[in-house]
């Protein structure tokens, strides 16, 4: 008898099985009703039983609340990846502990990187200062008072070379948080690797390069959406050929969430942005399987422990299904959502700042249980200034205690099968799909941005949360409950010396004097022409970088053709 025949149930067997299941469910319902009666008859605490996102949470979850089956949960490393993007997860490699860092000039930041690497950090992550984020040089008028304050000032290849002096770029993976001028900073990075004599095809790392969420949440844009999206597709195309191990984008929910969005909005907007990039790549004529495997993600890990874990599980499932079923990707690497996570800065408070260490520890645990690939843990002095060396060390040690002492990394996706976590995973998936529909009805992501829809949704959610905190309904320890008098701060903070700006400006003057002006002008003119001719701009920007054109010069050469973005002010 063949196995197929053996597995086929007869009609009566099938009917019996269905009846058995119905009986089981009826029994479950009866027992649940019994419990509900007892529950209803007992007094409850006067508290908000909702998640920080405002989600109603039931007092008890049972198998009646979720439809978990093998098809939707599956196995780690297998479609639809609910249980994790990789087969062995942390049993092969722990998540990468990657602290975001940058301040003052390339020299100071270079020292901090060497310190972090010496203390067991396994990847680098560059924070740029405000002028750099907006595409201004340190010696530009608009940079006054901002140079090196919120990150490191990088205005040309010279600064990038100094940033990684003594750090072999063929051996460390580097992530760069930059968006509006991402393509320019990426070219500085590639050119710096060339200068080190590194074969650029081995470069590993990520550039954030996610412009859609800039219009929605972070507001560090330069060009209007269409030319900005074109540059991103240029990066997909160029990187898939020349730097195949490098992630040309990190599709980010972090900023959306930190601006006030709910978990479901963060999930939906981020993935919908991701699908938008995929559509743009396909529209260019790229093979989806040539670029999709290098798309990477970045999520926030906020206070509500289980909702955050479920969010990461739902994200993997939605991405996998969309990529396979809607966009026809065939390569499993195109279905596999890999993500970086960061604990939620916005949950950290000025009052009794040491308590922030505890908040971060719980959030970090949620990130690990959610199956993140890398993690940044925020420092306790978050509300005061950029972190001090000491507070960064505690934040890093928090991850190490979690990874090496808590036992959390021993088994994969330990919360699978929890009625609550599976129910939340299903709910968040449903919420996201409903938001996708709303966005599609508006005509897509760019239309939603132009109408201010995303901005308004996020602002509404932020207002709701602020009201809950101000009314005291949402308890924040040390802020609206368990307060201690004046709440004065007693911890040291990092101060950036105003001399940094002067030094950086002087350095730029020297660099401008030493470079070959003719080469600079030629490279810039060629770039403007390439923008006009709709060629892939990456090779042209690389030439500009090699000629020591500055960030702002390159930005301006493209702006001539692309124009600049005017943010619609909705208020």
């Amino acid at each position: 008898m063949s196995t197929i025949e053996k597995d086929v149930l007869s009609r009566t067997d099938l009917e019996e099985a269905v009846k058995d299941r119905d009986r089981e469910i009826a029994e479950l319902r009866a027992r649940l009703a019994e419990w509900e009666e007892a529950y209803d008859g007992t007094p409850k605490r006067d508290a908000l039983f909702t998640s920080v996102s405002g989600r109603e949470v039931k007092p008890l979850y049972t198998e009646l609340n979720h439809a978990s089956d093998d098809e939707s949960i599956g196995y780690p490393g297998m479609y639809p990846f609910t249980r994790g993007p990789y087969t062995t997860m942390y049993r092969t490699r722990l998540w990468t502990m990657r602290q975001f860092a940058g301040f003052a000039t390339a020299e100071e930041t270079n020292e901090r990187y060497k310190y972090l690497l010496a203390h067991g950090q396994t990847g680098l992550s560059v924070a740029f200062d405000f002028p750099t984020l907006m595409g201004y040089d340190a010696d530009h008028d608009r940079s006054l008072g901002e140079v090196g304050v919120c990150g490191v000032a990088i205005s040309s290849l010279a600064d990038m070379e100094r940033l990684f002096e003594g750090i072999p770029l063929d051996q460390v993976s580097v992530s760069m948080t930059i968006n509006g001028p991402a393509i320019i900073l990426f070219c500085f990075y590639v050119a710096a690797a060339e200068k080190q004599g590194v074969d650029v095809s081995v470069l590993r790392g990520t550039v954030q390069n996610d412009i859609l969420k800039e219009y929605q949440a972070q507001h560090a844009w330069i060009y209007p959406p269409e030319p900005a999206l074109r540059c991103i597709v240029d990066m997909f195309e160029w990187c898939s050929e020349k730097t195949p191990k490098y992630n040309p984008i990190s599709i980010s929910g972090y900023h959306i969430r930190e601006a006030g969005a709910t978990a479901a909005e963060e999930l939906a907007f981020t993935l919908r942005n991701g699908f938008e990039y995929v559509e743009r790549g396909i529209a260019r004529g790229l093979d989806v399987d040539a670029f999709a495997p290098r798309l990477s993600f970045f999520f926030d890990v906020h206070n509500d422990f289980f909702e955050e874990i479920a969010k990461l599980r739902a994200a993997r499932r939605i991405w996998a299904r969309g990529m396979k079923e809607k966009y026809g990707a065939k390569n499993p690497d195109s279905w596999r959502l890999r993500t970086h996570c960061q604990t939620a800065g916005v949950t950290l408070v000025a009052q009794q700042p040491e308590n922030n260490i505890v908040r971060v520890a719980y959030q970090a645990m949620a990130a690990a249980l959610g199956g993140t690939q890398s993690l940044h843990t925020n420092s306790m002095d978050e509300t005061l200034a950029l972190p001090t060396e000491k507070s960064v060390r505690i934040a890093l040690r928090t991850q190490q205690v979690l990874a090496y002492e808590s036992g959390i990394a021993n088994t994969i996706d330990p919360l699978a099968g929890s009625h609550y976590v599976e129910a939340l995973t299903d709910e968040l998936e449903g919420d996201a799909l409903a938001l996708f529909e709303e966005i599609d009805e508006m005509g897509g992501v760019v239309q939603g941005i132009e109408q201010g829809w995303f901005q308004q949704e996020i602002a509404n959610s932020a207002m709701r949360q602020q009201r809950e905190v101000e009314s005291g309904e949402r308890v924040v320890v040390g802020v609206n409950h368990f307060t201690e008098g004046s709440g004065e701060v007693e911890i040291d903070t990092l101060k950036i010396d105003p001399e940094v700006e002067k030094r950086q400006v002087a350095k730029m003057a020297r660099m401008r004097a030493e470079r070959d002006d003719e080469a600079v002008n030629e490279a810039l003119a060629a770039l403007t022409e390439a923008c006009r001719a709709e060629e892939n701009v990456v090779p042209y920007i690389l030439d500009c970088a090699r000629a020591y054109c500055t960030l702002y010069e390159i930005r301006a050469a493209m702006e001539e053709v692309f124009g600049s973005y005017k943010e619609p002010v909705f208020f």
Partner: protein
Amino acid sequence: MIASAFRDAGFEVVYTGLHQTPEMIVNAAVQEDVDVVAMSVLSGAHMTLFPRVKMLLDEADADHMLLTGGGIIPEDDVTELERQGVGRLFGPGTSTADAIAYVNEWFATTHAG
């Protein structure tokens, strides 16, 4: 969010949006003839931006306007800026009600009688 809270509290708010230079802010303030200029500075550039706006307001004969705001501003800097004639500045954890009360109080004392 701050702007909405003030509007909800009955103020007429002219919201300029983000990434404004001191010149743009002062121009808008003078054009709209406002009573209060409020800025949010989280980037650490407050020691440059507040004095600059204050100076431009004075130059534009608009020194009757209250210059206030908030963001990531250490206590020492708040004190120093107050010494330079800037109004009260609010740090992280401020309740919007406190900021609104401050402006109302300022208005009542300066526009009394």
